[in-house]
């Protein structure tokens, strides 16, 4: 029973926020357009946060996602204009997208290799990667953004009225949730995060799994980068500055533990949406973007404190 309460806590907070905003601003908030808008806006960080969920459950962290977001965009956009000039064909845009995704996967794999092969702490390894990737993204085109005005599909396209980015977001959620709950790889992620020594003793190939986890995280960051790039029809070398913190916040609000072994994709989604709806709601009721930071900060601390509190209670009962 207590466990149920604990697991529903972030979800309950989300429902509460939506309910309050619905009562407060029924005309502007409670509309399909507004909801789709929030979903579309949360899809980029949401997809990245799903990857971060895997990493945090394994007991790690990835600070490089913001930089990698920019690097993937630059790689993809660079490929498109190199091969296709101002008006790249669909084929070339697809190729650019593949390059962007690949850059993400490789970026994640590098972090994973630094952590497992050089035995660096994830915080340090990805702190280095964060600077490295940002540097590369900036150096590539002398710090200039690249315009890809015809790359609109992921950002603006829609299928049956549902934005493509939202569909991708939902697909990522479903796949990632299934991987975590229903595959041996997913089980190993929990085991590594819960007790890496015990996992190793039990025959889990810890290094291989960790490289896989960071690669997957990088790949999802690449996907997020493609959507972000398509939305602004440009690749910015300064994109995603500070994104890692928003993403980590979403995962933690969703009930994951930074010490590993705990967390779910649904929790992360709830965390992502909670932050998005708060931003959205604040804007609608006229709270400035600067003041919104205060609101978000308070919510992060409250959410994690509540989680700790209910957990301690449950621990006492056990």
């Amino acid at each position, binding site marked *: 029973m207590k466990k149920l309460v604990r697991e529903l806590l972030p979800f309950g907070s989300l429902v509460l926020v939506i309910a309050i905003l619905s009562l407060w601003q029924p005309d502007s908030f409670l509309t399909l357009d507004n909801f789709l808008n929030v979903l579309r806006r949360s899809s980029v960080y949401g997809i990245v946060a799903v990857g971060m969920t895997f990493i945090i459950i394994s007991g790690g962290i990835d600070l490089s996602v913001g930089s990698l977001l920019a690097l993937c965009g630059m790689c993809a956009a660079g490929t498109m204009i190199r091969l296709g000039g101002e008006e790249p064909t669909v084929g070339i845009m697809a190729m650019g997208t593949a390059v962007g995704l690949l850059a993400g996967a490789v970026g994640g794999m590098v972090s994973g290799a630094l952590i497992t092969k050089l035995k660096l702490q994830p915080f340090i390894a990805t702190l280095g990667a964060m600077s490295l990737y940002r540097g590369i993204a900036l150096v590539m085109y002398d710090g200039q953004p690249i315009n890809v005005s015809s790359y609109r599909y992921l950002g603006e396209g829609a299928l049956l009225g549902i934005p493509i980015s939202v569909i991708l977001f939902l697909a990522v959620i479903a796949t990632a949730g299934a991987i975590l709950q229903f595959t*041996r790889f997913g089980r190993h992620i929990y085991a590594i995060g819960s007790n890496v020594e*015990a996992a190793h*003793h039990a025959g889990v190939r810890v290094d291989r799994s960790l490289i896989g986890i960071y690669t997957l995280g990088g790949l999802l960051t690449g996907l997020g980068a493609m959507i972000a790039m398509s939305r602004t029809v440009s690749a910015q070398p300064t994109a995603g500055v500070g994104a890692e913190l928003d993403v980590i916040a979403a995962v933690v609000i969703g009930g994951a533990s930074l010490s590993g072994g705990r967390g779910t994709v649904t929790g992360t989604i709830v965390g992502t949406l909670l932050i998005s709806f708060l931003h959205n709601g604040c804007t609608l009721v006229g709270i400035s973007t600067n003041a919104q930071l205060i609101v978000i900060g308070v919510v992060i601390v409250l959410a994690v404190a509540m989680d700790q509190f209910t957990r301690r209670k449950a621990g006492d009962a056990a």
Partner: protein
Amino acid sequence: MALCPRVESSQFALEMLGISKSFGPIKALENVTLRVQQGTVHALVGENGAGKSTLMKILAGVHQPGAGTIVRNGNTCAWKDPSDSLAAGVAMIYQELSLAPDLTIAENVWLGIEPRGPLPGTYSKSRILADTRALAERHGFDVDPNQKVENLPSSTCQIVEVLKAIARNAEILVMDEPTSSCGEHGVAVILEMVKKLSRGGTTIIYISHRLEEVVEIARDITVLRDGRAVHTGPINDLKIPDIVTLMVGRNLSDYFPKKKVEVGSTALNVSELSSQTVENISFDLRWGEIVGVAGLVGAGRTELARVLCGLDPSIHGSVAIDGRITKIAKPADAISSGVMYVTEDRKRTGLCLDLPAAWNMTLPCLTELGMKHILNLGRENEIAEETAKKLSLKWSGPGALASALSGGNQQKLLLGRAIIAQSRLWVLDEPTRGVDIAAKIDIYELIGRMVADGKAVLIISSDLPELFGITDRILVMRRGRLVADLVTSETNPEAVMQLAAVDKGRT
């Protein structure tokens, strides 16, 4: 000069009278009395689980006694906290040392009680150096106070711990297995230190498995067995074999009769196996056989198991299973070759405590269950439930967190892995440590059933009656080497203890 001793003051520096302590249904100590004379070395010996550490934790104020009193200098004491006992002059020096490796010897000795420096918030470096030097000289220790602790041998670390205790005005030192991680030279250093301390008037309670040390330095001895003090008195009329007999005493076969099992062909052949920590190990294990590995803590038993199960690399020698040379380079290789290692440290290297019990059971065996990629959660739970029945596991269900289970049931989760993986060769490292009697018997019965089923079991244990109760043969290890391969029915605990504890050339 008129000395005026109080009537009740005795020659005892410390008396623990009629101490009893229970943890739930388990009686850890029953009416134990320990009297330690001022300025002597008093040895406290007993097998693992005999109650030594519980008694010392009560002395340290970590636990409170269920019954009985502690008398220090004629005053009855009730210590609620380790700081209370330290204030009364009793200091513990535990096996795991608690020094800060990056600080110097002097800084460690005065940590937390630094003499104030000229400015607020500072301490006088020159003073702690001088004080440490004086303290060391007074007790005849040769240490450089300015040296970092990081690079010191463990025997010197023990000296630092002792200085730290003395700097806090300790008059009674409790040393728990101070030589367990020392080489030959380190042992000599520590014994010398103890003798010097004792000559200087410090009272020492000395806990050790190494009986030759005990008879060398102690004046009195108290032997604990199953939570009772079975002997206490001066050591001079006792020889090592006498002490061993007092320690072992009981016979497990009383409540676990070993069943006769037809022994099959050679299951495991280990030939000249060496690693960083074990040297030139050769032995055989046959299907249907239970072979014990005896030895002191640090003799290399766990290290042998780690090499066999792919946790540590071997640098020489070979392992053959069923006559075929088998390369086991990582734990997964061991599991797929039918070898399951059950760790001695289930909390640190065995279980994922905050994950469900069922997940813990199936973790190493998912491939064997046909779940190489995709899990079948329904079937997983079914198998877990089934295995739980075979183990008489007490849990609220497969979803119960491993941390919510008792020690015995946690141990059964790990044993369940071998059942689920249908491992043929079980390597069990202290499988009944910290487990209550009922669960112990369940575990013995399980082992008995498994060998009757043609499996082979290698069991590492510090509990000699256990080894004598259930094994066919006993291997004895000492300092990384195999020193004896004995048929259980043809030997006795005293002989095994002697082989394990006594170095040739010493005593």
